[in-house]
């Protein structure tokens, strides 16, 4: 079991290392303001990645997250324009995300179609529907949206603050931690991701768990979309293209095994923050081009995947030694 903790330790070491690099090279890096902004700017990706963690833990994948964020943004913007309260719109959208996720989970499990392809169709569908609803960016003008945007809890030290986006993210994290580690559903997710066949034999309700995982992910994706819409104060059909990749990358860098069964929600948060830190570092530097972000994240992905492979190999080697 100790070897399995290694990826998350590596994640935290990388996070601290990046922070140290920033502090060493740039004057204003180690301030609460930079930290607060890091949380705010990456809140929506991290929320989406938290949902993705459950999907990947169960041995699946969801490609529709980015489209869902765009869809939520545009629907919310249009509903608010038509006089809805943002919170009512949010509630309706959360129910929608839950139902769509559950439907995807059902199709995946009942018809044994690969999650990759099923979620690909909903990725197309949601992106297309967003464009059908509106081709252009729709602004969100509502007192609630303004209050959300200007909400601040100052940190005890420094000039930084905790934004509403960051608070929603922290709330999502707490909910996810409870679900993952304190409920039977959470244990079942780990079980079917580890070995679906054995889980079924042990009496784990596989169908219910798979449907639940995708429904839960749908809810997290919608919340990410709501945060993103309020963060940008608008809905745009081409928003958040490729966020599903960022979310998957955050989960992998956070130490979750892509084969399922092993990983921690908290690791994903660090994975998301690491990506955010890389971006912040490159912006702070000012001379590096933005494409370095993609290359560095790709490189980190590679390192972490190889690291996981090595650890899994040594774990299985140890296991077979113990059995002999």
């Amino acid at each position, binding site marked *: 079991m100790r070897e399995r903790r290694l990826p998350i330790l590596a994640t935290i070491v990388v996070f601290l290392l990046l922070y140290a690099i920033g502090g060493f090279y740039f004057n204003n890096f180690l301030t609460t303001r930079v930290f607060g902004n890091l949380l705010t700017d990456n809140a929506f990706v991290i929320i989406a990645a938290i949902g993705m963690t459950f999907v990947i833990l169960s041995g699946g994948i969801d490609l529709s997250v980015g489209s869902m964020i765009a869809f939520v943004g545009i629907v919310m913007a249009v509903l608010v324009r038509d006089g809805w309260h943002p919170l009512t719109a949010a509630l309706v959208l959360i129910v929608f995300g839950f139902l769509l996720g559950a439907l995807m989970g059902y199709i995946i499990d009942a018809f044994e179609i690969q999650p*990759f392809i099923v979620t*690909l169709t909903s990725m197309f569908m949601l992106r297309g529907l967003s*464009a059908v609803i509106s081709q252009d960016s729709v602004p969100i003008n509502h007192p609630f949206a303004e209050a959300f945007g200007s909400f601040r809890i100052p940190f005890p030290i420094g000039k930084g603050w905790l934004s509403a986006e960051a608070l929603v993210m922290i709330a999502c994290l707490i909910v996810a931690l409870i679900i993952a580690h304190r409920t039977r559903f959470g244990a079942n997710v780990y079980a079917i991701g580890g070995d679906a066949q054995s889980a079924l034999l042990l009496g784990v309700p596989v169908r219910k768990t798979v449907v639940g995982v995708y429904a839960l992910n749908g809810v997290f994706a919608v919340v990410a979309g709501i945060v993103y819409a309020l963060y940008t104060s608008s809905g745009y059909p081409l928003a958040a293209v490729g966020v599903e990749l960022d979310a998957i990358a955050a989960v992998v860098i956070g130490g979750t095994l892509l084969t399922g069964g092993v990983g921690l929600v908290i690791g994903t948060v660090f994975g998301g923050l690491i990506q955010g830190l890389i971006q912040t570092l490159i912006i702070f530097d000012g001379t590096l*081009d933005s*494409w370095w972000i993609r290359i560095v994240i790709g490189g980190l992905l590679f390192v972490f*995947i190889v690291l996981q492979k090595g650890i899994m190999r040594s774990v299985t080697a140890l296991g077979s030694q113990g059995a002999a």
Partner: protein
Amino acid sequence: MTELKAKPEAKRSLPTIVWPLLALAVMLVIDGIINPSFFSIRLVEGRLYGSLIDILYRGTPIALIAMGMAIVIGSRGIDLSVGSVVAISGAVMAHYIHADWNPWLIVLVTLGMGAFCGLWNGALVSLLGIQPIIATLILMVAGRGFALMINGPGIPTFRSEFFESLSTGQFLTIPTRLYLVVLVFVILWALLRKTAFGLFVEAVGSNASASRLAGVGTRVITIAAYAIIGVCSATAGIIITGDVRASDAVTSGLYTELDAILAVVLGGASLNGGRIYLANTLVGVLIIQSLTTSILMSGLPPEYNLVVKAIVILVVLLVQAPKLRSSIAVLFGSRGGKVKS
């Protein structure tokens, strides 16, 4: 048990290409009803024009990539990085056009770059044993960064008679790029069916450890499959970049991986590997492309493209799902209803 497992095989007396062809025929008939002039082909200034030609013409980049994808999927793999490889090869091509290299040399270098990208993916999958989705995700994420790096600031544009005629020109009234598709198809078909390579890939796809025990060089076969799709993607990159006469690293080849995978799936191949249907895949490409064309012709706004595409794909997938087929069989009182594994 053995009797039950043998059943679906025995049922398949029709060649697998029938279903995709039927879907394509339905699509084309609908197109013909929507637009009576759909099937007309005109000769204007020594070049054929018409909706059918247009479908073939626009489908070329996806067709090139999808044929490679069919092989990779046959080996039980998948390649998400093809769009990034398109961008990288476009950037390499533009770079050397600016350096005034010989066009044939540029083609060679660009295809070599594609092969290199494929080797990288193949090495991750076969040597390190990383899942294909994840292994190719790395290049998908980082690839466009490399393309931007090669491009430097801005989007490099160029003029090159050689590449323009290769991509948008015509030969004997038929667009040049269509010859290219035929050429790649013939080469791959010969490689798959006239040598043992195809058999080996399918063996690796159906049961990797069994074929390793049977003496198939699983690693080399897997790496070769990814190298092939790398070269295919680079070829598509040459066509796409030659068409727009610019190397746009951000949007060039965006989402082609999805279309290519869909084409393979529409062609009737399972993502679980084991079978390569090259011709079916091309029919799959034509289905996707004529779907796009019909949406445009039917007067629906182009935004509906993705929605309709998603619905069609979902229907095709559900129809193909063995689970649904067996439950329908139960519904109609067939005795083969006990298929449960």
